[in-house]
């Protein structure tokens, strides 16, 4: 189950962060997402290691912490997507598929002429769309 998704901007500032848990651990998820930026920095700033994955946007599992697993994704405009899940076994393909759909939703949201780039995403329709994507995660369909 996905417990949290986040969009992080250029200055490592949160643009969108939504948690999907019953429990009130929003703060903890904020911490988890914030810390994962260190791993993203490490992976992105280490081009030697990532040479074969030059155009790869999917960053994979960033780190496991307590009972969460954190996955990352970096768009071409260097906006970071972060997903936190409690599932023990996440297939790479599922995570990739999730991020692809999420990316599409993000692109639609920032293409809104009333959205100012670099500001928080406050669009409700984006939120609704993200909820749908989150719910469909792990259902096995790649549609």
């Amino acid at each position, binding site marked *: 189950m996905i417990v949290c998704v986040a969009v992080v901007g250029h*200055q490592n500032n949160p643009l969108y962060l939504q948690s999907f848990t019953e429990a*009130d651990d929003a703060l903890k998820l904020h911490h988890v997402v914030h810390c994962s930026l260190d791993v993203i920095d490490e992976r992105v700033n280490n081009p030697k290691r990532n*040479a074969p994955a030059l155009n790869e946007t999917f960053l994979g599992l960033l*780190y496991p912490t307590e009972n969460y697993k954190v996955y990352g994704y970096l768009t071409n405009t260097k906006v970071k997507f972060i997903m936190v899940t409690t599932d023990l076994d996440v297939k790479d393909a599922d995570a990739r598929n999730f991020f692809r759909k999420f990316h599409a939703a993000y692109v639609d949201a920032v293409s809104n002429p009333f959205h100012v780039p670099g500001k928080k995403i406050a669009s409700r329709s984006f939120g609704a769309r993200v909820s749908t994507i989150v719910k469909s995660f792990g259902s096995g369909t790649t549609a």
Partner: protein
Amino acid sequence: MNLLALPDFSKASILARTAKTRDPLAPPPPPAGILKKDWLLKHRTRVPAAVAAMFRADQVSGDPAQWLQACSDLENLKSVIQGRNTKLVVILVQSQAGDELGEDVTVALRKRAEIDSKHLVVLVERDETEWTKSLNKLTSVFTELCTTYYKDEGRRIKSRIEKRNFSSVELSIRYCFKVAVYAEFRRDWPEALKFYEEGIRVLREMVGTSTRLPPTQHLVEVKAIAEQFHFKISTILLHGGKVVEAITWFRKHIRSYERVVGSPEIAFLHWEWFSRQFLVFGELIETTAATVPDTLSPRFGTADNVLTEWEFQPAYYYQLAANYLREKRYALECSSSSVNLTEGVNGLPESVMPSVYVGQYVRLFEQGDTVAVLPLSDTEYTSYALSEAERFQDSYEIIALFRKAYESFQSLGATRMASVCSGGMAIEYYAAGDFSNAKQLFDGTAGIYRQEGWTTLLWENLGYLRECARRLNSLKDFIGYSLEMAALPLFSSSGQGNSSENKRKNGPAGSPTISSRESTQQEVINILEGKRTSEITDDGSNFHLMEESTHIDIDQISPLRMVLVACVAFHDQSVKPGSPMLVSVSLQSHLPCPVMIDKLEVQFNQSGCNFVIVSAQEDCSVSNPHADVATQTTSLTLFTDKWLRLTHEVKPGKSGKLECLSVKATISKRLVVCCQAESPVSMEEFPLWKFEDQVETLPTKDNVLAFSGQKLIQVEEPDAQVDLLLDSTGPALVGELFTVPVTVLSKGHAVHSGELKINLVDAKGGGLLMSPREAEESESHDVELLGVSAVTAENGSKEEVDNIRKIQHSFGVVSVPTLCAGDSWSCKLEIKWHQAKSVMLYVSFGYSLDSTEEAALHRLNVHRSLQIEGKIPMIVGHQFLRPFRREPLLLSRIRSSSGDDKKGSLALNESNMLIVSARNCTEVPLCLHAMTIEPNDNGKQLFSVEQISGISNECPVIGPSEEYKGIFSVNPRVVSSSFCLGEIWLSWSRDSTLGESQDNRVIMKEMLPEVHIEEPPLVVTMECPPYAILGTPFTFHVKIYNSTSLLQEIKYSLVDSQNFVFSGAHNHAASILPKTEHIVSHKLVPLGSGSQQLPRITVTSVRYSAALTPPASAATVFVYPSEPKFNLEKGYSTTDACVS
């Protein structure tokens, strides 16, 4: 391999088996536990794999009594190790290799000991090579024996596992452990690993199935065993360099025990154990210095490589260990509070101690002399564990773990992770009541959250900080943190009530919501107004409001900029002192509730401009301490995110920079917020609010001002009220001392410490006439500033200014005495031109209004400039002429026909004419005082100069473009090919009739060219009357003088002239003796009147083949029609005219 050395054979009994009083026929009782605590210790120190008996050679060879003693010792040893598989070795120590031991002795010894021959080792003490050789042999013997022993033991137990020859799961696990340990003893790592893994697998299956112990204790035991197994496996893997396998194994281990928490009362035990797993694994990784293997795919976290970077870092495990230990602390708090409520003082079991089995606890029960060991019930165990756990200060351990992780992450460059650790430390300090340490750490972590805009995390942090400030009784900090919290932009999501669970997770501030922001702000206002709120009294601490107000400073980098920002813009770019101008003060706050400002003070760097605005709601009778400060009353209420714009008029008093420094807002009388003023043009975005999706507003209504307004303005200098006059009389002439009068005329300002700067600049090409360096190098300057002379007003006499500070060739500084208003001061600049050049004269006059130091900073300046042409006053020319009708034959002139040599030629001992002309090329009349030829020093004796005509007593005045001529006769007395005649000296001045001062005579020098002086071999002189009368015959002589000592042959010819008839030969030749003169005479009768050309005579020297024809002017005579009548003087002037 462990080695135990015993001093003599009497101690051998410690190796003996402890006697077990067990009935061999009875079935074995069910095992009371899985592993005995001392089993491993026993096998490491007390159960030997091989025993060596050591004898000195003399003990077994010589004395029979000793031999017997040795035999009995050996028997004893054998009986001790009987029943075990322990191997025996006998060592004989010889002092030298030469000491031959009898074969029979060794055989006897072997038989006694019942050992193979190779298990009897002879050590040779004194021989180096033998010694090492025998030691090596001993080593190999021991190794072999040990390996055999442990292999046998292992095989024995392994067979039980394989045959499933055991009665319970516990035994199976125990056997696995034993086999693995034996394998480890003989360094068979794969087998050790295999049986450890098998054991832990069986163990995991055992959870919840066994009923031997009450469930809680059972779980504790299982975990303790699992920990031991896991430690073994991790160590073997890590030491074998299998980092990836170790980490994967650890993941598996964690996953399988993650959820096995047990009952809530003993959850703390689980978390403590869980935390220990991370700590131990972290330490293992750290001690083995595990690195990421090269063979691993660099794509961490993907299907290629499921591990992540941090799992290779011990810091990651320390951080999680700290997290879980904190979890333990929370669980412990819950458990102890519930136990205290229910049980009170009841039933803390006494004398509980760890049992002989790993992970088990028992109670010692003493009854008289017998000590019984009784099992515990779960309840008893729980309260025992609780009381044990409460004795420990977990906080400090958590802090230590976090600190370790923090330092490690910091060095890895993972600042965010490090800040989480530092936040964890801070929370522990906070929980432990160490608020100053907590505050310091929280302040550090708040920085990164502020920087990256993680407001939810910042909110938590500030919540703690606020409480720390409250506990530390620091009102200023408390207000600062509270206001920052209230002004934070928040994520719209989240927001439950403020339950205690919520407080545990979100810190003392609860979850960030609009309402909590508002209540935070309200709390500050309440404190300031002295109202008590229930929340504060709850906590038992309250702030003592002090009489004086609290000051908060906000600058451009302060996080409190969100609370209040002041933007100040002047409406103009520059202003004159004393004239009014408008200044806009705009204020904005992000606080959620409207802010009422009592008083607003705006401060400038010129305190005279400060003003205060008092809110209309305030009592206007509040006495204003600054009577001169303008006071206005307006409604000063700041609404959220709305600019409060105020415009005020200020009058700058002094010139220079006027800058708005700060805006002080007084809120609720006691809080003074001092905002550094910002310019709209350079105003930055609000640090956290810039990410918010909201409409941005401008600080001023005027768009231009909002984008270009400045908080500082340049107040100009007052207009100078001093005039500076420069005079000049037309162009300057080269050579003269040209004076330029400069007058400083005060027209209202008193002049103090005035200073006149003079600068001469080439008018054509920019820059100075000469660069300072050039001026040093060369002495000559085209234009030179020679001096400045001041004219004092009192006596009008000229005197040199003694306070000239500095005069250079093109630059001068002169100080001007103090002048009262209306006074004037003048001076003259003396400039000399060496070359004709056009020059710009720049004069600037700087002064201050009074003599104080402050005024010295504000100097007023007046600048004037004047272009002055420098002109050459006269053009001097000269011309050499020969005497009238006397032609010396100058051979050089004939020969130098090629024209290379342009030198003039003069005849020796003849008077040569020199005409010097001076043309005035200025526009003013000049007075010529003298015109002389000044020969060189050595030239004086060599020739004589005689002035024939020129300057008489009264010096002539030459008008513009007039020419003056002077005639000199030059008589050289020496032959020279290049003879220097000297210089023409002209002494001139401006025409004094125009009122100029008289003494400014200028001597102008002009060099005469070098001439060639030679002796003429022949001189032809023509003699002819001054005039002729029509029809009256006259004689025309041509005298040819031979000045050589040779006979000269000449020819001459005469050409007919139509105006004359003459008698004599047309062509003739003659010879002239040395130093004699030959005269050719012709009689002529003029036929026409007027100026007539005489018949042309050409004299040719045969020797020099040079022809000489007198010039036409010399061969002309005026013929009167009849005898003229004129007086003598007129005749003289006629001659003169003829000459000219």
